């Protein structure tokens, strides 16, 4: 477990030394959500209706933005090979890297979402559900995205390819995440949506580091 926390600490430290990369994804999230009212028009009723979907799609894209960097730098300077050779299991180190990615790219979005939701006239309880859904959903996005990042490591046109591979797999998270907020606004029970989101998170937390490790070993061959 020490190796796990050491990896998390190392990745966080590296990101803190280069803050601009992390902040870019956060600003991207803010800008994309602000573009929708400009494109659609300032009608509060319409904006309130589409707010959950917009915030979730923007979160999806913002997470995607940070994914190519998840393994790229470590692959180029050989750190990844040393990790594969180290006595601690690679899967554990990969899980640490994914957690660090979520702390850097996912958690800021969760914290910012209520603020952006206010711009769309969501009330306090809907904002709470939105934050909770994103809290469950963004780690899922990081976990699934890590598989795509490992598969496209060092591949021609990796960034665009990554989007093509990962976005279809993000659809269930989008449906249940945005659906939870929509159901709440419509006065329905949100327990089912959140439970399914949590179930997918548990499933991904078990399988994704494993699949990512397999993909990384292929890339390192």
């Amino acid at each position: 477990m020490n190796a796990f926390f050491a990896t998390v600490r190392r990745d966080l430290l590296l990101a803190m030394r280069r803050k601009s990369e992390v902040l870019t994804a956060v600003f991207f999230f803010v800008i994309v959500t602000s573009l929708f009212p400009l494109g659609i028009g300032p009608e509060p009723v319409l904006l309130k209706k589409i707010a959950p979907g917009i915030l979730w799609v923007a979160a999806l894209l913002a997470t995607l933005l940070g994914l190519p960097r998840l393994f790229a730098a470590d692959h180029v300077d050989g750190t990844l090979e040393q990790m594969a050779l180290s006595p601690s299991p690679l899967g554990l180190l990969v899980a640490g890297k994914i957690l660090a990615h979520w702390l850097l790219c996912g958690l800021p979005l969760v914290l910012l979402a209520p603020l952006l939701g206010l711009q769309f006239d969501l009330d306090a309880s809907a904002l709470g559900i939105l934050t909770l859904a994103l809290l469950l959903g963004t780690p899922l996005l990081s976990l699934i995205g890590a598989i795509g990042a490992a598969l496209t490591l060092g591949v021609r046109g990796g960034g665009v390819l990554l989007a093509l591979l990962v976005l279809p797999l993000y659809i269930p998270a989008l449906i249940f995440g945005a659906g939870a907020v929509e159901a709440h606004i419509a006065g329905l029970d949100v327990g089912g949506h959140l439970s399914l989101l949590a179930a997918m998170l548990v499933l991904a937390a078990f399988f994704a580091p494993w699949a990512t490790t397999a993909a990384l070993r292929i890339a390192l061959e």
Partner: protein
Amino acid sequence: MRKSIVHWFKFASPQSFYPLAGRMIPWFWAAAAVFGISGLWISFFVAPTDAQQGEGYRIIFVHVPASWMSMFIYMVMAFWAGLGLALNTRVSAMMAQSLAPTGALMAALSLWTGALWGKPMWGAWWVWDARLTSELILFFLYLGFMALQAAIDDPRRADKAGAILALVGVVNIPIIYFSVKWWNTLHQGSTINMNKAPSMAQTMLWGMLLMAMAFWMYSIAVALMRVRAIILERERHTEWVKHAVG
């Protein structure tokens, strides 16, 4: 027991699979032609005009088999990919690679014929129905698989990376399907209920089954032709390919 294992693994080598595929292809083409001609004959001349949908319904004789094949080929592709990953057999990975374009073609055909059917029946080329949406996502999954394989130059790495993607995809397909279905029932405002299929005349069912068999045979024949091309391309440095091509 031991003997049979040896026998099966014989065709895991590209050199022995290449002629076997070559011998099988004409039979599958012939079967595709027989099933296709009889299926088309039944669907155009024998099957009665539908009371509600008129002549336009006849597109289902292409649409339904194409949809079936698009889903089934993904499963077969994932099976070969997983086998190739587990046993490190080259032909398995080549089979997975050769099935992907046919699967994508079937998904595209299914979407296109679905749109052609939807316009006269529903008055819209596209509705966000659960089945249409999941078929579209399946099409995206095929595109992702082919794009990943095309982007990696080293064929061995392309095989293995593609295999992992296919397996991740196959785990996700049920999750995607049920989430799309639930999403659709939550937003039930504008959709049309497709689940209540009207009872079908016997001849219509026969036409559909024959067309499905024709699509099966076509898919197998084309996949085998493609896998032969892939084998030749990858094994071009070997002696037997130089002999085979002449």
